């Protein structure tokens, strides 16, 4: 995972009330291998919103505007990433080039997957998100800054908004820590647990 510290990038206002993970990556792309370079997953991000049936970019879709080609931050509608737990949704978000999402609420599973893959999801109160959305719509291509160490988002107008993030997620994002490595630091405790568990529940022996 690439560490996440501070990000300043073009922020795109994705003003759609609900985007579920099936819209982030339509089901028919579920079997897509994620090859080196990750171009395939960048392509399928919000695929059916971005492309028509002939695979042509939809001119009226916001992310297809030239000014958002380099968008690194998305400001999202109130219900983003709910639905199926497909982790490809997080891959696609990352591979499209988005490192931070700012919205009022995110699907639990999607949010966890994003964090695991180095994409920071920031929850702010809906009025604040609406304010950011309005600023970005008024100034297409405006940039925002996300400062993870300070837990602060800086809006295009310079206003700052503090956000919460749990300490573990923050630490792992900051250090780009591999989750398996972190867990295996506890291997002795895991083994001790398993030994006691097996002793307490001997009927589980065939599969323990």
């Amino acid at each position: 995972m690439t560490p996440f510290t501070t990000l300043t990038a073009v922020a795109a206002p994705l003003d759609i009330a609900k985007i579920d993970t099936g819209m982030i990556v339509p089901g028919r792309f579920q079997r897509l291998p994620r090859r080196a370079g990750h171009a395939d997953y960048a392509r399928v991000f919000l695929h059916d919103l971005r492309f028509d049936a002939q695979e042509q970019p939809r001119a009226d879709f916001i992310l297809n505007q030239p000014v958002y080609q380099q968008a690194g931050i998305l400001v999202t509608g109130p219900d983003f990433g709910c639905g199926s737990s497909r982790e490809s949704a997080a891959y696609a978000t990352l591979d499209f080039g988005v490192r931070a999402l700012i919205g009022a609420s995110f699907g639990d599973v999607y949010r966890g997957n994003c964090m695991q893959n180095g994409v920071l999801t920031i929850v702010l109160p809906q009025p604040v998100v609406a304010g950011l959305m309005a600023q970005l719509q008024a100034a297409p291509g405006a940039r925002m800054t996300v400062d993870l160490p300070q837990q602060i988002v800086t809006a295009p107008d310079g206003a700052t908004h503090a956000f919460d993030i749990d300490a573990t997620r923050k630490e792992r994002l900051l250090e780009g820590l591999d989750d398996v490595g972190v867990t295996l630091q506890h291997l002795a405790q895991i083994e001790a647990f398993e030994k006691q568990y097996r002793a307490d529940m001997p009927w589980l022996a065939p599969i323990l």
Partner: protein
Amino acid sequence: MSAPLSLFDRVWARHVIVPNPGGEELLFVDRNLVHDGSTFLAFDQMRSEGRTVRKPKQTLAVTDHYVPSAQRATAPASIANAEIRRVVELLDINAREFGIEHYGVHDARQGIIHVIGPELGWTQPGLLIACCDSHTATHGALGALPIPIGQSNQLRHVLATQTVWQKKPKTLRITIDGVLPAHVSAKDVILAIIARIGIGGAVGHAVEYAGSTIRAMSIEGRMTICNMSIEAGARIGMIAPDDTTYTYLHGRPFAPNGNNGADWDRALAYWRTLPSDADARFDRELSLNASELAPMVSWGTSPEDSSPISDSVPEPASVTDAEKRGRVQRALDYMKLAPGTPLASIKIDRVFIGSCTNARIEDLRAAAAVIQGRRATIPAMVVPGSTAVKRQAEAEGLDQVFLAAGFEWRDASCSMCGGSNGDLVAAGQRCASTTNRNFEGRQGPGALTHIMSPAMAAAAAVTGHLTDVRTL
């Protein structure tokens, strides 16, 4: 006296290895289930990192999402779509390489992952069951603690460590009391719950379903309820084990049976300690009266967009919340439905009876009872939830009932639930479906999905429109 605990609290506590400062806890995973979805991503990453599966015996793999529902004898070689064929083959290759037991295309134990776990007794009360799928809560119907995980990073973590980091959710008890009216099933109960609390209504909560209605329900019905916890926003849904559970489990392949039955007795004694204490506290409570429920159908693009069949398509104008109004309007546009249309007048193009929500033997019996002696007037198919369910149905003659009525009788797979294997609803086609999701494009691009119970789907197959099974 120790503090009163809920079923969820008790099983959760039993699996905590160590907490971390961020408020997550490292939980021991008893059993892990892997399907053919995008799980190759996890194995790819493991391989590139040189990792092995830490406890291969505690993982079981089965192919379900991508296997064909027809022409199975020659699969996977005969799967025309090379990408789909590759995914089916990859699970086999990965399972072999990593030393995991795998039920492949031709295995008698094959089926949808959430159907075979309980069916084989792999799922048991008090065990933590991890599975790389949204509908893992199904396993909670037996009193297991279900933990849905991602198909790549999180699955890789479980495979490599046999543990999972989780933040303990809050608890919500939904109590359903009373006797369900005739033709009102578990599916109608859960759709009524979701319609009431909304698709995000239980986010951040582990749900326990309780009450006399649940106690009177079969394990199959309980699984239908728990299955759709995620459609209410909850990742975890559980039901306390009871004699119905123990009777269901006894003698199943993975059920405890060693030491001349002593293992079963010891397990049973433990299981009986699990149900919530009478004075256990829940962060939220909700109750429902079963006798007031009616057969439900969905009209929109979220499971919460469900109403009793006697209702009409809602008027967006009458929705007071502006945001919800916009969403309802968008749903109706997608579904090509005019406000005020009586639900029972909506014409249907095809019927799908299947999925981990409603493709167990009891579901097939319910559908068969409705179509017995009748004929489908539109294309309809039944895809049993597992190969064992299929065999059982055939032993009972249900296949003949379906075939005589003009239904297709397919092989166990996820099939048209999400269309991964190519069983798609065509764009613009309207499908009466026993599945759990009616999101835009869920059954195929432009597909229009109405979710309902097996009996209601069977009734729609007979009349060609949404139909109140009670009036058929």
